[in-house]
């Protein structure tokens, strides 16, 4: 499922809303999560999961083609941990 499919389905389920508004709502959610992570904050959505950032130290990497050592700077990576409810639903699957 893509973002546009998500918007289309939510619009169909909420006929009283303009699809432009649904688009804004979906964009707002992901923009807000992005902004929070950029500020170094975490986003916790009970039942769904938590978005956090993790600090990665600088390291010496290798160009996999040439084998040459390449310095990799320290960086921050976004991380998502599924919440208990979602984790269990995904593991169980719908068919089970």
């Amino acid at each position, binding site marked *: *499922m*893509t*973002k546009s499919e*998500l918007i289309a*389905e*939510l619009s169909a*389920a*909420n006929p009283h*809303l303009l699809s432009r*508004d*649904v688009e*804004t*709502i*979906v964009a*707002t*959610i*992901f923009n*807000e*999560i*992005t*902004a*929070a*992570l*950029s500020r*170094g*904050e*975490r*986003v*916790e*959505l*009970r*039942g*769904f*999961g938590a978005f956090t*950032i993790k600090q990665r130290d600088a390291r010496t990497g290798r160009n996999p083609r040439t084998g040459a050592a390449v310095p990799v700077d320290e*960086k*921050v*990576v*976004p*991380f*998502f941990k*599924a919440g208990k409810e*979602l*984790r269990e*639903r*995904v*593991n*169980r*699957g*719908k068919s089970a």
Partner: protein
Amino acid sequence: MSTVTRAHLTETIYTQVGLSRNESADLLEAVLARMSTALEDGQSVKISGFGTFSVRQKGRRIGRNPKTGTEVPILPRRVLVFRPSQVLKAHVNHTAIPTGDDE
């Protein structure tokens, strides 16, 4: 470290879209619910500019209780993984935002 919750996201939707607070909360819930159902079905959810949530099948392996050292079988299971997009990675690092095709 401060934490952003449903209440914050609801408030942002309320101010940006002009729906009532109740309806803003309902829509946020609807977005999360629809994404959850897709993932439960084993589908990937791909949000361009943000990242991709996908379901990965893991095989059976032998784990170990780290405290006692006893071997415990870990049964095959399905886990959710999130791959952040290049755009999201750039944002959190405050580096230049890549343009063009985003995976």
